[in-house]
C-alpha cells in the first residue's frame, strides 16, 4: 500500500522508516507550505483550528501524490483533535478523494481496535510479527535520537558565531539519522550528529536569555506552523527549551520531566485535569520554567484552541505570582512571519531589560 501520515516536525524521518520497513511504499508528506494551508483552508470549517487545516491540506497533497492510506491519531477528548479524523474523513468524502484514514485511538481506551489497526498495517505489508516488533523498536529509537539532536541544536544556536551554522549542522545530523537502519547505526549516527553540532563555531562568552516554549502540541512541534520560532529565537541569541517532545514520556533530562506530576503543579491554579490538549500542562510548565530561573515563556496556540484559552486566562495570575513574563501567540492562517518576529523581538528586549535591571540591583546590594 502507499501510506502517508501527518507531518509533525522532524518526526517524519522516523515514520518514513517505519512505513518503508513494514513492506509498504511511503508517500513522505511535504513540509506544510502556503499551498498546504490554502488547500486546507478551502475545505475546512472556518473555525477549525490551524492544525486541522494544515492536516487536511497535507492529506490533499499526499492524495495527489498517490497515497492510498493515511495513518493518524484519534483521541478521547475533550480536545477537538480526537475528532479530527472523523471530520477529515467526512470532508475527503465530500470532495471525492479516495483515501482511507486509519486512526489509532488511545490503546487504553480501546485496545482491540488498536491491535486490529496495527495488524492491518503489518499484514498489509506482509511481514511477520517478530519483524514488525523489531521495526517498531527501531522507529522508537529513531524518534528519540531525532529529539536528542534537535534539543541540542536549540541549546547551541544562541552561541553560534555564524548565523545559520547550527541549522545546517542539524540537517547534516538528521540526514545521517535518516540513513541509519539498525539500533547500532542509529547510535552511531546520534553520536556523530551530536559531535557535529558541538563543533559549531561558538562564542562561549555570551549569556543568552532563556525562554520556555509551551502550548498546543502541533504548533509547538511543527516549525512550519509556528514560523520556525525556535530557530528565530535562537538566531536572536535566545536559548529555548521546549516543553513537548514526542519522546518526552520516556526521558528524564528535560526540564518538564524533572519534577513531579505536572497536573499537581498546576493544581493551585487549575483544580481540574485533564482539560484536553496541553491546557493543564501549559499552566504547570509556566510554573516550572519560573522555578528554574527562565527569563520568560512563550505560549503557542492555534486560534480558538479551547484548552489553551483556558490556560491563557489563568496564566496572568502565575505571571504575577512568580514574576515571569509570558507572551501568548495565537496562530491562524493570517499570522505572518514578520508579525511574529516583531513581537518576539519586543518580548526579548523586554526580558533583556528586566535581566539587566535585576543584575544592576544585585550589584547595588553587593
Amino acid at each position, binding site marked *: 500500500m502507499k501510506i502517508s501520515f501527518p507531518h509533525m516536525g522532524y518526526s517524519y524521518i522516523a515514520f518514513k522508516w517505519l512505513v518503508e520497513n513494514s513492506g509498504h511504499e511511503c508517500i513522505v508528506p511535504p513540509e506544510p507550505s502556503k499551498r498546504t494551508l490554502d488547500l486546507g483552508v478551502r475545505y475546512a470549517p472556518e473555525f*477549525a483550528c490551524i492544525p*486541522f487545516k494544515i492536516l487536511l491540506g497535507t492529506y490533499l497533497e499526499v492524495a495527489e501524490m498517490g497515497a492510498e492510506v493515511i495513518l493518524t491519531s484519534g483521541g478521547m477528548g475533550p480536545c477537538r483533535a480526537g*475528532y479530527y479524523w472523523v471530520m477529515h474523513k467526512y470532508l475527503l468524502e465530500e470532495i471525492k478523494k479516495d483515501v482511507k484514514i486509519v486512526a489509532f485511538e488511545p490503546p487504553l*481506551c480501546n485496545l482491540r481496535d488498536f491491535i486490529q489497526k496495527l495488524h492491518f498495517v503489518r499484514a498489509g505489508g506482509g511481514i511477520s510479527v517478530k519483524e514488525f516488533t523489531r521495526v517498531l523498536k527501531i522507529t522508537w529509537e529513531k524518534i528519540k535520537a531525532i529529539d536528542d539532536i534537535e534539543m541540542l541544536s536549540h541549546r547551541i544556536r544562541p552561541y553560534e558565531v555564524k548565523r545559520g551554522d547550527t541549522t545546517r549542522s542539524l540537517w547534516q545530523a538528521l540526514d545521517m539519522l535518516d540513513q541509519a537502519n539498525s539500533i547500532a547505526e542509529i547510535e552511531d549516527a546520534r553520536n556523530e550528529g551530536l559531535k557535529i553540532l558541538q563543533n559549531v563555531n561558538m562564542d562561549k562568552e555570551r549569556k543568552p536569555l532563556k525562554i520556555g516554549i509551551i502550548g498546543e502540541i502541533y504548533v509547538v512541534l511543527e516549525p512550519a506552523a509556528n514560523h520556525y520560532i525556535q530557530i528565530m529565537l535562537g538566531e536572536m541569541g535566545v536559548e529555548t527549551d521546549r516543553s513537548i517532545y514526542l519522546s518526552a514520556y520516556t526521558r528524564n533530562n528535560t526540564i518538564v520531566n524533572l519534577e513531579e506530576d505536572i497536573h499537581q503543579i498546576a493544581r493551585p*491554579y487549575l483544580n*481540574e485535569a485533564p482539560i484536553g490538549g496541553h491546557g493543564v500542562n501549559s499552566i504547570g510548565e509556566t510554573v516550572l520554567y519560573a522555578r528554574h530561573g527562565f527569563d520568560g515563556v512563550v505560549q503557542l496556540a492555534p486560534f*480558538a484552541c479551547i484548552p489553551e*484559552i*483556558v490556560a491563557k486566562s489563568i496564566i496572568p495570575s502565575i505571571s504575577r505570582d512568580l514574576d515571569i513574563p509570558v507572551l501568548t501567540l495565537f496562530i491562524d492562517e493570517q499570522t505572518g512571519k514578520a508579525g511574529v518576529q516583531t513581537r518576539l523581538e519586543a518580548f526579548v528586549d523586554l526580558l533583556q531589560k528586566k535581566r539587566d535591571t535585576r543584575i544592576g540591583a544585585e550589584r547595588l546590594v553587593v
Partner: protein
Amino acid sequence: MARIGIPRTLAYFIYYPFWKVFFTELGHEVIRSSPTTRDIMDKGVKEAVNDACIPIKIYHGHVADLIGKVDYIFCPRLVSVRKHGDFGTETFCPKFLGLPDMVRLGIKNLPALLDIRIDLKKGKEELKNICLELGQTLGNKSTDILKAMQKSVKAQKDYEKYLNREMFPEEAMDMVLNHHENHNGRKTIPEFTIAVVGYPYTIYDPYINVGLLKILEKENVKVVTQDMVSDRELNRMAKTLPKSLFWYFSNRAVYGALHFLKRKVDGIIHVTAFACGPDSLVDRLMEIETHRRSEIPYISIMIDEQTGEAGIKTRIEAFIDMLRYRREGDKCEN
C-alpha cells in the same frame, strides 16, 4: 441561611429547577442574575479573557452582576453528567472544565464560590455525595440534605417531562417551581415546523441570539429544540455516527438534528457562537449529515458581541421565504 447566586446562563437552562429546589429546601435563598442585558455583556467582555467565546464572556458578566447581592456564587465544575461516548468519556467543553478557575482568577472582589466538581459518570452514588458535600459546606444536616435532594430530583424529572412536552425552559420552570398552569396553547396552525438546535445557552437566551425564537414565532413557525426530545430517542442517534463527540451539549445538539431529520421537519437552524471550538466540527458535521440523509434545508446562524437584530431577522426571513418557494415548487410539480 445564605444567599446563593446562580448565573442565568450556560447550564442554567437545563439544571436550574434542581438547584433552586435543593437550596430552597435547605432554607437558603436563591438569587438569579438578571436576564442577559447589554450591561451584563459589557461587564463580561471586560472581565473575561479576550479569546473566549461569547457565552463564556456573558457568564463572567452574570457573575459580576451577582457581586454584592449574594454570599455565595454557585459555579459548579461540570465534568460529566453520564457515561456516554465511544470510550465512556463524554465530558463538557474544556472551558466548562476550567470555568471556576477562570472566574476565580479573572474577577476581583468575588464572594465565595461553590465550585463543586460534578462528575456523575463515576456512579449512582455520586449525586448524593455532591449534594452532601454542598449542603455541609452551607452548614446543613445530612438528613435534611438527602430529603432536599429527593425533592430536587423529582423537580428535575418534572421539568424534563415538561420540556419533552415541547415547552420552552422558562415556561417549564414556571410550571415546576410556581405550579402555574399557564399553558396557553397555540391558536393558529403553524405554517412550518423548524428545528432550532444548538446549546441551551445560545438558543434560549433572547439577548444572545437577539430574539431568534420570537422572530420565528412571529413568522408563525413552530419551534422544536433538542431538549424537547427524550434522552432515549436522542441516544439512539449516536449509533448512526462513526464516532460520537466528546461534549455533552454538542452531542445533544447533533443527535437532536439527526432526530429531526428523521421526523421530517421543514428546516433546521443551527445556532452557534463565534469561535466556538466544538461547534467548528459540530456545524460541518450537521451540515454534511443533513445533505446526506435528507433534502431538508439547513442554515447556521452565528452570533457574537456584534450581532444585530436586523441581520438575524433578514436571514431568518430569507430562510422562511425559501421554505415557501420550495413548498410551492413541490405543489407545481405534483
